[in-house]
């Protein structure tokens, strides 16, 4: 793997983001709005609730972590979509750049852009609404790791979907986090869900993260086995997504889709 070539993809994305307010603003604007909205909702719930239950670390913390996952996923797909929108596939894939270098560049671009959103969310949630990450303890590290890996996996899967089904299929991939969220138990315990939904929860790494977030807030211990399962699952998703992307890329090279991408000759 040639780091120069990978860095070219990152630099390309940084050029695009830094030179365009339309790309720069969404990095932090939507997550900031989410923080403010959910910050006040949790404050209100704390005020009207008779129980001595703090909604801030449960709801606001959950929204922050979920937004982080969403930003990571969208970070990968956005970097990929830039090549779709600028019809750049032929220029990019007719170079010595390998698929691992290209995907590596997408992931690094996503780290850079999602880090901006994460910092903005942490600053807003802690300074305005008093959300303290110290409450999560060291478990915060695997929480972020699992959500990061799962975001990367779905981002790569989204890119593979667009590569396979053509530019118009981008509308399949933007709502993926919203589609996953009911099963991930972001705002409620998994036990709340009907049995069939709980089966799906078990194979989604974020569900273990949010179960543990609620356990910590309730004063219970973190489940090391749950976190372990979620890390392993997230790694499996990343490996699986990379495998699918490579398969789709090879199919595109075999059928000529890369060279005539905008033609949408998919059957």
């Amino acid at each position: 793997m040639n780091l120069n070539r990978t860095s070219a993809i990152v630099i390309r994305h940084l050029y695009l983001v830094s030179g365009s307010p339309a790309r720069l603003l969404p990095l932090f604007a939507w997550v900031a709005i989410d923080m403010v909205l959910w910050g006040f909702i949790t404050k209100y719930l704390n005020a009207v609730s008779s129980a001595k239950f703090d909604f801030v670390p449960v709801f606001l913390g959950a929204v922050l972590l979920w937004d982080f996952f969403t930003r990571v996923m969208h970070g990968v797909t956005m970097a990929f979509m830039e090549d779709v929108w600028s019809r750049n596939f032929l220029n990019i894939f007719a170079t010595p750049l390998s698929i691992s270098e290209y995907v590596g560049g997408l992931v690094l671009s996503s780290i850079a852009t999602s880090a901006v959103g994460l910092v903005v969310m942490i600053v807003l949630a802690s300074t305005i609404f008093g959300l303290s990450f110290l409450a999560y303890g060291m478990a915060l590290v695997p929480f972020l790791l699992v959500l990061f890996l799962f975001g990367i996996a779905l981002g790569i899967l989204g890119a593979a979907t667009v590569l396979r089904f053509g530019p118009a299929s981008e509308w399949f991939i933007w709502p993926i986090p919203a589609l996953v969220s009911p099963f991930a138990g972001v705002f409620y315990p998994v036990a709340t869900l009907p049995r069939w939904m709980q089966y799906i929860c078990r194979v989604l790494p974020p569900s273990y993260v949010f179960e543990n977030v609620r356990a910590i807030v309730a004063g219970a211990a973190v489940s090391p086995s749950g976190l372990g399962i979620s890390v392993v699952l997230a790694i499996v998703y990343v490996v699986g997504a990379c495998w699918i992307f490579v398969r789709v890329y090879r199919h595109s090279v075999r059928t000529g889709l890369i060279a005539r991408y905008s033609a949408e000759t998919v059957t």
Partner: protein
Amino acid sequence: MTNVLAVERLGKKYGEMVAVQNVSFHVARNEIVGLLGPNGAGKTTTINMILGVLEPTSGSILIEGVDVAQQRSKALEYTNFAAVYAPLPGNLSVYQNLRVFGLIYGVAGLQKRIDALLEQFELERFRDTKAGVLSSGEQTRLCLAKAMLNDPHLLLLDEPTASLDPATAHEIRAKIRRMASHGACGVLWTSHNMYEVEDVCDRVLFLSRGKIMLEGDPKTLPQAHGKETLEELFIAVARE
């Protein structure tokens, strides 16, 4: 002269449809080879296979002796291309485009190389201009500058002067001829402009229905087949 490109029994089928059939040819160092043929003859398909963006159904492609199918990245390090249908991203500036592709091609002394190419292709005043707002001729010059970034041993040009005015096209042809004669480069050039082909190419290949029909010196080939000009010969081959 050694070969920078060796294509052997190359074929491409889409299901039952044959796009390229049993095509063999080579491009030697310091040689400009014209790949000619009517629309749909298989020229772009052949170029796409050489560039590694389309997998051949059969045959082999060696660039500087490196098999594209086996060592794609290494083979493509020796290659670059410019095509009228592959403009560079319009949302990056001229400089940004050259920097990004320079990094991908691993160009040593990239800054100096970019400055030299900006001067060579008269793009200095557009250095910080977004590629998307350049005129089509300026975009073509940018694509050609990108194609020269890594001093390619094999340069693939698909109708490189299609959107240039005659004066600029003349200059570009002269630049490419100089590059081919002085460096280590061989050029595969497609064009529908037969006067240009006759002027630039050392050898031409006529491709029709995915097969090479004729091959030879563009200056003597028409007479050898009882035609006055290369254009007449082109029309005759295309109608066969």
